[in-house]
Structures are given as C-alpha cells and as structure tokens.
C-alpha cells in the first residue's frame, strides 16, 4: 500500500485538519467527535441540513458544507458510518431553531447510526434516505438500494431550498422527491485499498470489470470482461432509464462521477457516450456535472447519474452555492 499517510490511525484526523486549514474561510472542523460545520452561522429559523457517512468518498460530504448546501457533515472512519454522538453534537452546534434534516445514504450501518442519533437528539428532526443505486434490486425483503452519487444532488437541491426558508417537513418532502427523480449506476475497473486494511478490498482480473459496483468496493450486479465505453454506458444508462422512465424529451441533469482513479479525460469521454445514448432515447440533457464527487478512495471507475428535472429542481440546482467542492453564483 502506497499512500500519503503518517500513521494509519491518524489518517482521518490529519486529513480533516488539513481540510479545515485549506477552507477556513467557509468551514470549521471539530475533532472528537468529528464533524464539519459552516464557519458562519446561518439564518435564524433555517432548517439545518446534516449528512454524513464513511470517509473515503471525498469530497462527499464535507466538501458540500457551506452556503446553499449542508450545514454540517459527520465523517466516519474510512467506509464506516459515523456514530450517533457525531450527529448529535453536529446538530447541536448548527441548530438555528428550524429543526434538523438528516440526509442519509441507505446502508444498514448509516441507517442505524442516524436512527439512534435521531432518537437521542433533543431537536426536532426528520430523515431523507437516499437510495439512487439502481444496480441493486429494491425489494421489501432486502436492505434495498444503496445511496450513491445522487446524494449530492439531493444535498444541493434541499440545501438551496432550506436556504430559501422552507420548513423541515417541506425539506423532507423535497428531498424524498429528488431522490425519487434520481438514479445512478457505476462500474469499477480496479479495487481501492482502505488504509487500515492495507490491501485491496477485492481482486479483479486485468480484463474484468465490476458492473453495478458500490462506492465501498462492494461487488455489484455482475462481473464481466471489459467492453468499450459506449457499450458500458449503454448498460448503465439503459438500466437507469428503465427505472426513471422519463417522458419523451424529458429534461435531465447528467452527472458523470469518477470514483477517484479515473482520469478526467475518460470521464468526459463517458459523458460523450452517455449523451449519444440519451439522444437515442429522446432524453434532453439540460444540466451536467462531470468530475470526482462521490469517490471510493482511488478506485478506477465511474458512475452515471440522471436526475429528472422539473422547474423546482432546476431552480434549486442553479441557485448559488459556496462549498469546498461545489461553487457557483457567488
């Protein structure tokens, strides 16, 4: 394992400290329990948006703390959900009297830890569960779909709406709505290596790929021989469209997300493949986002996310945002 680290046990603390130093204009780091909050208090009565999850997906979620998006993020250990004390302390630190909305990716661990935080927290709170990963079949007999790259879209949209002053219940409703409009699927070429584990999470042959991979290197739908970018894209986009069933000429946000180890050049090439596939399917790309936003450490691979746009989502997507990883309009 070759990594920029000093000591496996200090990776998270040192990385968070660096993150805080690099962005001291917009955020503050709290250690023990670990959380990241905005540097400036937001408006009185504003709903607080709090997300969190295992580390190793950076910039998710800490990179989205700031005006127009999250109020706080709770980073767990690498690929391990954070613990309730983090969510409780973060909620108390950013509370403005508007209540707390937890944005949680659907994993047993995240769910249970946020659930316990929700029960133990003395502040009114609700939870939006993100489960955009169509690689996993959704059934009441399983854990259901995972939350992946679509999470940051939920955070952006609800973040903007919360800034505009809507209520906790409305935030929850909007978050659920965006989640329903959003679907993702990914593919991995290589594994990643969790620093504390010291070796790759999974083995994969030099000519194989994992279709439908999770963002923790969890195995996906199937393992296949590598194919061309166009063929891979067709697989992903078609599965997504089957789920979202957009109307003819529906407008979407197309997000091509790198898992950390894939060059930007290839992500834009994928975007081009996806654009061709969407055109064939009479879906119109109105907004786009390409880059490493929801990563799996240094895993090579990428995911495609579509979010069906309505006026409300479009408005809140375009509104100003000022975070470490996403910034426009200000």
């Amino acid at each position, binding site marked *: 394992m070759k990594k920029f680290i000093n000591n496996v046990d200090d990776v998270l603390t040192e990385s968070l400290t660096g993150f805080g130093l690099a962005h001291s204009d917009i955020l503050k780091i709290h250690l023990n329990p670990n959380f990241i909050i905005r540097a400036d208090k937001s408006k009185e009565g504003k709903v607080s948006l709090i997300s969190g999850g295992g580390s190793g997906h950076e910039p998710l979620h800490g990179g989205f703390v700031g005006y127009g998006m999250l109020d706080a993020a709770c980073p767990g*250990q690498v690929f391990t959900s954070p613990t309730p004390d983090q969510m409780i302390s973060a909620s108390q630190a950013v509370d403005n009297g508007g209540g707390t909305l937890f944005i949680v990716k659907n994993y047993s661990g995240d769910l249970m830890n946020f659930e316990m935080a929700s029960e133990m927290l003395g502040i009114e709170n609700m939870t939006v569960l993100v489960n955009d990963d169509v690689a996993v079949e959704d059934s009441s007999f399983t854990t259901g779909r995972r939350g992946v790259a679509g999470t940051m879209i939920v955070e952006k949209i609800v973040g903007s709406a919360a800034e505009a002053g809507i209520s906790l219940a409305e935030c929850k409703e909007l978050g659920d709505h965006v989640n329903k409009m959003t679907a993702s699927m990914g593919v991995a070429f290589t594994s990643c290596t969790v620093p504390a*584990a010291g070796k790759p999470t999974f083995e994969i042959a030099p000519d194989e790929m994992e279709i439908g991979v999770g963002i923790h290197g969890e195995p996906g739908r199937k393992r296949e021989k590598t194919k061309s970018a166009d063929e891979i894209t067709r697989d992903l986009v078609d599965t997504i469209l089957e789920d979202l069933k957009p109307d003819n000429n529906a407008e979407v946000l197309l997000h091509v997300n790198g898992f950390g180890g894939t060059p930007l050049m290839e992500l834009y090439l994928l975007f081009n493949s996806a654009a061709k596939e969407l055109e064939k399917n009479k879906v119109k790309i109105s907004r786009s986002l390409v880059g490493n936003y929801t990563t799996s450490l240094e895993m090579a691979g990428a995911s495609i996310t579509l979010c069906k746009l309505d006026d409300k989502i479009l408005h809140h997507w375009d509104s100003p945002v000022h975070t470490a990883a996403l910034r426009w309009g200000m």
Partner: protein
Amino acid sequence: MSSEMIIQIIKEVQKAYEANASEIEKLDQAIGDGDHVINMRRGMKAILEIEEELGSLKPADALNKIGMTLLASIGGAAGPLFASMFMGMAKVPGSDDIHNSKTIAKMFSSGVELVKQRGKADVGDKTMMDVLIPVSNLFSELVETDNLSKNEMLGQLMAEAERGMLSTKDIAATKGRASYLGERAKGHIDPGAKSCQLIIFTICNYLINRGESK
C-alpha cells in the same frame, strides 16, 4: 459476575479476535466492505481505555457504559448492534447482582431482543442474528433444564453458535451489505456471525476454564 469479570472477558475476546482477525477480515472483504475487524478492534480498544472507570461501576452501569462506548467508537452496522446488545443486557432487573445462569440468560435474551429491534433482521437473513437468536433461545431453554452441568450447558451453547455461524454460509443475504450480492454471497460465512460465534466461544471457554481452575 462483576465489572472486573466483564473486563476480563473483553480482554479474552480481544485476544481471540486478534488470533482470528485475518480470517474474519477475509469474510468481510468477500461479501462486505472489509472493515469489520477494524471496527471491532476500535470498539474493544475504546472499552479498555476506560477500564478503570468501568471497574468502579456496578455491572448494569458498566454494561450501559460499554454500550455507549461501543456506539461512539465502532460505527458501521456493527456499532449500533453490539451497543444494543449491551444496553439490552443492562435493562434486565437484577442484572446488577447476578449469581445464577437464569439471570444471565434473561440478560442475553434481552440484549438479543434489542439488537433485533435495531437491525430488523431475523434468522435466515445471513447476519449475526443467525448466531444470536438460536443461542439465546437455547440458553433460555437450557437454564430451565435440570440435571445439566454448567460445563455441559456451555458446551451446548458453543455448539449452537457454531451451527448458527455455519448456517450463514450457503444462503443469500437479505440484510446488511452482503444483500447487495444476491446469489454471489452464497458460499461465504457472514463476518458478523463469525464474530458473534467467536465471542460466544471465547466467553464459554473462559467460563469453563475458570470453573475448572477453581
């Protein structure tokens, strides 16, 4: 049972865990995300860091404190579940002052019940519940059985834990991270089930040896 004994047992478990770490790690790498051992290690370390404080508490308070400590240190799915186990055990009236197996069986059963409430998994979902539930049921049954030596009882519990753990091997998972794998999870033992089996085995073994040495 005293707080010191709880600590002693946790130290034994920690030792057993290290001896089996790479095996369990491989299980979570095969059907999970590979962090289960790291998570469990972090939890045990956190408990032992407050060893002194725990020693000064009454057993029920110590169990609660351990639960809260695990909750704030393990994370992942295992964190809330193991925390619930201890918190559930602390709930049983009389858990402060226990001299007989019946109370311990009640505590165990109460712990498992809270784990089940939190995780919403049952036998057959390919999780730690495949060990915890049958062992808890058998335990409650055995303490009502006459003419059973303590060591015989412990031996039966160990065997039941082993059976439960092995039963996770050939089924698909319907809860936890392994459920994403569908059919591909078959053929691998669930890491959480393996952890629970190891913990139960270690505790029983400790109690058997302790009994002998006295």
